């Protein structure tokens, strides 16, 4: 482009460049050169010199120090200032391409596209841009693309100006501002989200890149109540919907006889719907007991009704607990029984088959879909249990997607009939409210009694364990600060980023992503660190040390998306820093 322009109007731009560059270089020159540019026919040698100088100039202009050029430039050329500040990293190469507006346009387009793609990738990976960024994202992108188009026009304009020789023009014209499409209205952005979307559209709308715009506010820790406060408050609280809930309960309890009939006919019952169904099953147990008692007196049976109530929501429950309590209801305590749940169950079932009880054993299972009963063999054992004709099972399910627990075969074994028993009752027994909210917010550290509690535990542990914990704290803090640094980098703007090639930036983004999504240290890495610092010598020892922390719930572990185990301390940054300080001060 430059050459072309030089061909059309030889010399016009060159002297200016010459001037600026000579001034920068501190060479002796005077204004006379400016005043008689036409006279000088640019020789080949000079042109080469100019090219060199141009490059030099550009290198400086794109460098970190801008003051020199600004200082060198005459006042009243704000454009040059802007140019230097906002120049894009790809520009120099465009300038160097020998001939051509078309190439530049193409390059500009390509770079804009590349940039937009990169941004998209970054954003999808990070997914957590701040509000302003997310809002401005599209506009900036559009501007950049359009800016790229405008660049060509800009060059032509520049050429015109050069021809007229009106003003001193810097050789790298600014892209921003000039390229902005004139007279084109900004796209109207509606502040309210689209209404009445179908559910799947809503899902995509809310999950769109940059769609998550949330504030950075944090919940003050004083807001959440602790156990004591919660229970005192809830004890005095009176639900305004009490009568309606009682009515619902009464409504459901009218079906008790129907349920008994269904159970007698070999079906098992599963109750679902919103609200705790524990009260309902309690009432049903009482009703069933009376019914069975009346019935056994009819057929002069001395056996008292056997109703086994299982609270599936209790945290430590295992399938073994259920089966062994069932076994203890059937056998006398002197009989020796297998210990494993599988054999025990088959033993129980074969006993029930060969000596069927006069009345089937009723099992009322609260929360069949609770976490402990969802895993492993529990489901299939329960299905086997429920399939036996001498067992009647009535269970409740709380989560909305519970039917996914069972495959076709298990479903056939269960022979469930389902009833909607929405009660709106609070899940008082099922959920430990305070604890699960803390867990949800990553504040489960509050459980150990906070910093002091951890300090107390650490003081009672051997030196090695303390060192291990210290390593973990330091690593976690490092990770956290790495995250913030990355965020700061983002915030600093184009300047430092412009030096980096796109790939660098992408790597940065992915690294940041990894540290964030992982949130915590890889088990392997921690182990190697620990070995490196002579905290432990083998993995068994390492596990033993970790177990202590796990027991005190000072460390949590989780498998991430890649299947690697990650460990972290369930504290927030401030608390971690406090802990670190404690370590330093007390020499923990």
């Amino acid at each position, binding site marked *: 482009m430059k050459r072309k322009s030089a061909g059309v109007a030889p010399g016009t731009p060159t002297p200016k460049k010459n001037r600026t560059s000579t001034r920068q270089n501190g060479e002796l020159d005077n204004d006379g050169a400016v005043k008689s540019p036409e006279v000088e026919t640019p020789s080949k040698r000079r042109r080469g010199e100019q090219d060199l100088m141009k490059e030099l100039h550009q290198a400086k202009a794109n460098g970190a120090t801008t003051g020199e050029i600004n200082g060198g430039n005459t006042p009243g050329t704000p454009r040059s200032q802007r140019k230097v500040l906002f120049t894009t990293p790809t520009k120099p190469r465009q300038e160097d391409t020998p001939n051509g507006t078309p190439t530049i346009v193409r390059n500009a387009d390509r770079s804009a596209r590349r940039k937009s793609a990169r941004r998209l990738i970054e954003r999808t990976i990070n997914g*957590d841009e701040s509000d302003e960024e997310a809002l401005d994202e599209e506009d900036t992108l559009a501007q950049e693309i359009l800016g790229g188009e405008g660049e060509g026009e800009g060059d032509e304009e520049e050429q015109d100006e050069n021809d007229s020789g009106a003003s001193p023009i810097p050789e790298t014209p600014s892209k921003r501002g000039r390229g902005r499409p004139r007279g084109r209205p900004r796209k109207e952005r509606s502040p309210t989200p689209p209404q009445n979307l179908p*559910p799947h559209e809503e899902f995509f709308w*809310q999950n769109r890149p940059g769609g998550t715009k949330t504030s950075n506010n944090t919940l003050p820790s004083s*807001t959440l109540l602790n156990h004591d406060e919660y229970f005192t408050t809830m004890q005095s609280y009176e639900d305004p*919907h009490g009568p309606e809930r009682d009515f619902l309960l009464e409504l459901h309890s009218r079906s008790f006889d129907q349920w008994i009939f269904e159970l007698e006919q070999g079906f098992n019952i599963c109750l679902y719907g919103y609200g705790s169904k524990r009260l309902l099953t309690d009432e049903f147990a009482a009703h069933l007991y009376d019914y069975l008692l009346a019935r056994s007196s009819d057929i002069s049976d001395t056996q008292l009704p056997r*109703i086994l109530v299982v609270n599936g929501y209790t945290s430590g429950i295992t399938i073994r607990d259920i089966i062994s309590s069932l076994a203890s209801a059937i056998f006398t305590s002197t009989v020796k029984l297998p210990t494993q749940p599988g054999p025990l169950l088959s033993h129980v079932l074969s006993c029930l088959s060969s000596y069927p009880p006069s009345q089937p054993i009723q099992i009322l299972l609260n929360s069949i879909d609770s976490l402990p009963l969802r895993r492993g063999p529990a489901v299939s054992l329960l299905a086997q249990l429920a399939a036996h004709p001498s067992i009647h099972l009535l269970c409740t399910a709380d989560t909305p997607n519970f039917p996914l627990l069972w495959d076709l075969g298990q479903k056939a074994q269960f022979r469930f009939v389902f009833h909607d028993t*929405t009660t709106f009752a609070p899940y008082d027994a099922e959920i430990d409210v*305070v604890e699960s909210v803390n867990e949800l917010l990553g504040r489960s550290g509050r459980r150990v009694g906070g910093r002091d509690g951890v300090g107390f535990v650490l003081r009672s542990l051997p030196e090695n364990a303390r060192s291990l914990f210290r390593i973990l704290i330091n690593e976690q803090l490092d990770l956290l600060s790495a995250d913030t640094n990355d965020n700061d980098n983002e915030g600093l703007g184009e300047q430092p980023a412009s030096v980096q090639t796109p790939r660098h930036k992408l790597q940065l983004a992915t690294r940041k992503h990894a540290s964030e999504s992982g*949130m915590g240290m890889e088990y392997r890495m921690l182990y190697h660190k620990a070995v490196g610092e002579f905290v432990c010598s083998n993995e068994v020892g390492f596990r033993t040390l970790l177990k202590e922390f796990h027991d005190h719930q000072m460390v949590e572990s989780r498998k991430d998306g890649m299947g690697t185990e990650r460990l972290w301390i369930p504290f927030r940054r401030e608390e971690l820093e406090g802990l670190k300080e404690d370590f330093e001060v007390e020499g923990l």
Partner: protein
Amino acid sequence: MEDKKCYLYAPPRPQPGRAPKRRRLVNTGQPTTWELREHAFHEAWAQQEHQIQGAIDDADRSTLEKIAAFVSGVVPGPRRDRPPIPTGLVITGPSIASHGPFFRRVSDKIIADTKSIFVPLNSAECPNLKTLLKTLIRKATSGLPIDEDDDELPPSGAHKTGSKPLDYDLCLLLDWYSKTPVDKITIAIQDSEGFDDSIIVETIELLSSWSDRLPFVLLFGIATSADRFQDRLTGSAILSLEGEQFVVEQAEESLEKIFRATVEGPHVSLRVGPNLCRLLLDRHSDHSQSTQDFYDSLKYAYLCHFYANPMSVFLNRSLEFDQINHSAFEALRTLPSFRNYVEALLEDGSTDEIHSLLDSDQFLFANIKQHLELGQTALSRLTSAIAVVVILRNAMWKTQQVRYSSLYIRSASGDLYGSPLTRETILMVRKASSDTFSHVLATLASLRHSGLPMDIKEYQQALADLTEHSTTSAPLKSHYDVQSNTLRTTLVAQKVDLSKHKSTLSKQDAAYSDLIGRFHDELEAYLTEALIDPHSLYLSEILLYDLKSPHNEVFAPKPRFAMERALSSPHDYLNCSCCAESKAEGEHQLSASQPPSTILYQLYLESGAMLNVNDLWLAFNAITGGEDNQSEDVTTSLFQRSLAEFKYFGLVKPSRKKVDHVSKMMWKGL
């Protein structure tokens, strides 16, 4: 009691305050006729169950017998060489749900018929070879009663060498085998697709190395095909097997048989209506693919009919007039079909009968008894007419087979008579040639409970006479058919051929045409009479059960929808005055009076994929909160409770992307 894991329920000690309440519940629960209806239910269902069981047994009797014969055909006893293991490849088809019951029947059959024990294994209990062997040994050794002193496993495992074998050592099995009268060990691998390839191969190799001492028989349940199964095995494993293939009847066919068994026959007291039928069959073909599920649904239909319909008491065959009180008759007089019946009587002018029907319970009772019988006969005729149509149709069109169930659905909704399908079928009968006709007659003669008015034997006799006198070996043609035939020949052949053709028609064919014409007329008359609309029957409310409503909810529940509905419009459930207003104002209005979880749910729905808990709390507080400190505590605890509930349901999960954020996991209505 709420935090105990498991406990046996014990009634609380009688307290003066609580006892009466419970008693009230017990007493009010059952209406007076329930015991009679329960009796009727047991009567009706026992009959049905017998039919269904028969159908199921029929369906795979031959396969079971083949398998049993295969197992008993294996020669037991120790051998020098290592013979290949006899293996049955049982192609059970894709419906996993029916595998369990099938293998149970195989087990019963094998244990009853052969001196073998049966060890079923499935993939869930055998994650690796060691556990597989453990399970195998455990199941085998406890499968049959052995000496009482053999209570514990270790003593039996005291090996000759003195060393104690581990519990997955097949030595244990050998020890046990030498003590029992069992002559072979049948191992059934129920879901071969569920096992890892390597486990199956290793098992086969291990078992074959023991096959000189222990006579194993393997049965593999295969859902796909024997070829695919073979592809999964290694060459050496295949070499040590000696396979035979058994194909089990597919769920689709056995369902058809079961279905027929449940509606056909004069003894069926209650039939399932078309809508419910369609629902059940659709669910079977689309989702469950198991006869068990169909059986359950049908049983539930019976349950519902007898439990919820007071009229069903009249289906009790041993019902006496004085067992029911007046109200049952009053209820019956309100039935739409009763009204129609009375109106029809009125048109006939038999007012006396109407008077007695309306006034005298005794008369009505006799009337009902009589008409229930008549209705059942009519329905039974209907079902056998369907069977006739199916036979005719399938005899005429070899390619396009119709299913009994689909015809039943059409006829039960009353649109089979006069439908193109029936008309076409009847017309085709006229054109049938003598061999097709004799085939049709033979099938009709073998039909059970056929209510056919015509004498099939007579037709068969006449046809036999005709064919005997026929000079040519070609089947006789009906002249209805020949006409079109001639038309065709004229187009292709010369005129001479045409006339010749006509001359052969004259004698036997004409006689045959007469015969088949007669048959056709009788058939048409029969179908016209039999293919009624069951809903137009008097007392059809008692004879048919056709309600979709409880079945859908009971067998295909929508728990997620129920929960979303409860949370988004609590008024639907609570029916409270406070929420009614907000309901009236708009679809989803927020108001402070709603239960806290539903308020939070609205906020949850409105937010994006990530939720800032602090902002959520502020919004929640703004809606529900009061001014003073005390109420803020309440608000906070309600907020915490609702949030904890959401976590429990899996609506939210902790997010590590931002501090104090949770991510949204469920979108309403998806």
